[in-house]
């Protein structure tokens, strides 16, 4: 523990850690108020100290804090600007400088970005991708920020923790993957939400008779089909095996993995044909045009539908149960958030900003840009949520385990250079599963083994 550098900090530390969330916050705020009365000048001088781990400053912070953002299209960009502005207002003397890089380029160049001169704080995702950077020392430890964070479910804290037990990530929004459908179509044709694999097959047969493609499918870009694999694996083998497989600790030639592909091959006829030439958007349009019945995708699917009646017509159910001993309590809900670079120029303000991002105020401003995602902080006011958002929130809350999606849960080189082509070749030829798995395993050994 470092020596308290101000009256306010000293007072704040008097509060024992066992005191529950809200009370402690009001106490801290009170201490802050006392602190500013006592000696704002002195506080200002020492809080912009950026060397070493000074912890989250409870006093005022000043100076410029830089933020690297991948929210480059118009509406999200404005949303980011709005909550960064709100932060500046709440912390007079601080300016936030946002460096926006278009989404694709930001992600593709993350390695170069972090090794060049990264901004103090930047947008990123939870999962293996986050842990990888922590391991390589490219991002900063923000466990001290987490000590003061309230309202975050444990599952999300776990997702923000790296292998060394420290936290490196602050979540802002997340969104679930599930099976989406249009309520009007189900009502019209009298379909019922399938609870088991058999139900799904029966429903699919019925939809085919009615002239609908049962499951929309578009894997031209390679990543959407990973979602289907994950869902089936979670249902057939459970969360623990899935995570282990993603971490490279299981053999892909294991009969458990073969079972996943066999199951998939069983329901593949229900999927839209010729999926390798179709983008997810075109598949979503088939759902929109009522040409297909269901779609396994993330809730960002709602962005394709027009606001109002069309979006309200969208609903989802969890991927059906396949093994009754495993059930359906594992889901996929990728988490987006922010991290701090390893050597920020203004560590104090950066950490304060990260704390701010974990709070409902910032998160609700972020949601203005994209109502297909939900806030991660559980104390956020959900009265403004759409029906879909409310259902997503319930869905995420009631899940026992949350996976992040294949390309965030496993090594990115394995996901993009091995899994994408492998899954595409499975879709083309679902008969040679053994050959495929042997090929994946050989490549996996050469990547993970290194």
């Amino acid at each position, binding site marked *: 523990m470092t020596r308290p550098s101000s009256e306010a900090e000293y007072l704040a530390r008097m509060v024992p850690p066992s005191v529950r969330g809200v009370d402690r916050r009001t106490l801290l705020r009170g201490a802050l108020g006392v602190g500013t009365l006592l000696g704002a000048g002195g506080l200002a001088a020492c809080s912009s100290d950026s060397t070493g781990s000074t912890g989250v400053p409870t006093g005022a912070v000043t100076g410029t804090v830089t933020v690297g953002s991948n929210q480059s299209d118009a509406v999200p960009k404005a949303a980011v600007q709005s909550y960064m502005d709100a932060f500046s207002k709440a912390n007079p003397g601080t300016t936030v400088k946002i460096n926006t890089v278009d989404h694709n380029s930001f992600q593709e160049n993350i390695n*170069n970005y972090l090794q060049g001169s*990264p901004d103090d704080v930047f947008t990123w995702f939870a999962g293996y991708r986050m842990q990888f950077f922590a391991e390589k020392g490219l991002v900063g430890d923000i466990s001290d920020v987490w000590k003061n964070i309230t309202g975050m479910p444990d599952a999300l804290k776990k997702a923000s923790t790296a292998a060394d037990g420290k936290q490196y990530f602050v979540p802002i929004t997340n969104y679930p993957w599930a099976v989406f459908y249009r309520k009007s179509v189900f009502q019209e044709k009298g379909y019922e939400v399938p609870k088991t694999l058999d139900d799904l097959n029966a429903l699919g047969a019925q939809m085919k008779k009615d002239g609908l493609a049962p499951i929309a499918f578009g894997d031209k870009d390679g990543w959407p089909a990973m979602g289907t694999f994950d869902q089936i694996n979670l249902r057939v083998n459970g969360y623990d095996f899935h995570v282990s497989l993603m971490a490279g600790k299981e053999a892909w030639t294991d009969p458990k993995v073969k079972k996943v592909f066999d199951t998939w091959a069983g329901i593949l006829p229900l999927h839209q044909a010729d999926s390798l030439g179709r983008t997810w958007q075109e598949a979503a349009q088939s759902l929109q045009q009522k040409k297909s019945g269901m779609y396994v995708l993330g809730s960002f699917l709602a962005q394709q539908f027009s606001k109002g009646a069309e979006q309200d017509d969208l609903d989802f159910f969890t991927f059906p149960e396949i093994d009754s001993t495993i059930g359906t309590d594992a889901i996929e809900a990728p988490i987006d958030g922010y991290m701090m670079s390893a050597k920020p120029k203004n560590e104090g303000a950066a950490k304060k900003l990260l704390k701010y991002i974990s709070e409902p105020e910032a998160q609700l401003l972020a949601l203005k840009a994209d109502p297909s995602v939900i806030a991660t902080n559980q104390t956020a006011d959900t009265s403004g949520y759409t029906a879909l958002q409310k259902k997503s929130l319930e869905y995420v809350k009631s899940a026992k385990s949350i996976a992040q999606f294949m390309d965030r849960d496993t090594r990115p080189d394995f996901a993009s250079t091995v899994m994408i082509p492998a899954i595409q070749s499975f879709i083309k030829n679902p008969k040679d599963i053994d050959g495929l798995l042997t090929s994946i395993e050989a490549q996996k050994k050469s990547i993970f083994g290194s």
Partner: protein
Amino acid sequence: MSVTVDPVEERSQALLKPREGGPQSGRRWLLPVMLTLISLIWLFPLLLALVNSFRDYAFTAKNGYVSWGGFTFDNYTNAWQQADFGLHFMNSAIITIPAVILTLFLSCCVAFVVARFSYRFNLALLGFFLAANLLPPQALLIPVYRMFRAIEVPLWISDSGTLLNSFVGLILVNMAFQIGFCAFVLSNYMKALPKELYESAVIDGASVSRQFFQITLPLCRPALAALAVLQTTWIYNEFFWATVLLQQGDKFPVTSSLNNLRGQFFTDNNLVAAGSMIVAIPTLVIFFVLQRHFVAGLTLGATKG
């Protein structure tokens, strides 16, 4: 007294005169018709995109692209506002214009020496430049990134203190990659110039630089114009180097603005098409401006049999 006849002028005059012995009369119409047909076929895909860039996405999502209706100018106004074209066009200009000029100039220098003089290293040099053009730039991204990060330069050259995240670095890299191709092409065009052209100049005591600027360069006008168009197009549309070597979004060239029109997941394709049309305008302008130089120039085969 052959010095007084400007070879450039002579050629220009010859080519401006209508070609004699044109298409046999009676079938005069065949060529223009064929060419019009070809042009229309070539333009068709672009026209398709152009038409659709004026259509609302909600409409085409509902009715598909093979339909009629939903026309609007909104895509263009939205694209202009959202993609921040002003800033990025300026960035592209800062990168492209010096890169093209320097590339062409340096390539001409090398091509001239190789074509004009018969040194033993000529072929090796040509091979050196030609092979440089064959490498996929993507393979060299990381080594160059590392190198630039390590090279320190004064702040007036780059505000980051190193060649990384600087326009100078990006210009140099583009130049390096294009010089190979241009040197190779230009050396072949210049080799076609007969030595006799230079004889009179040398007798008069012209230095190498005078020969270069007054004889060689003017005669290479069509080749230079063609290369200028190609280089501008390539460097302007180039994307990978910019994203690797620049780290700040507001320094990215205009190719990146198009990406700003895409969402993380959802993309309004019609909007991106409108943006792409806007982005294509400078290269089209360059092409039109330089088109008139696809005339006078070389004396290919003049003294050969």
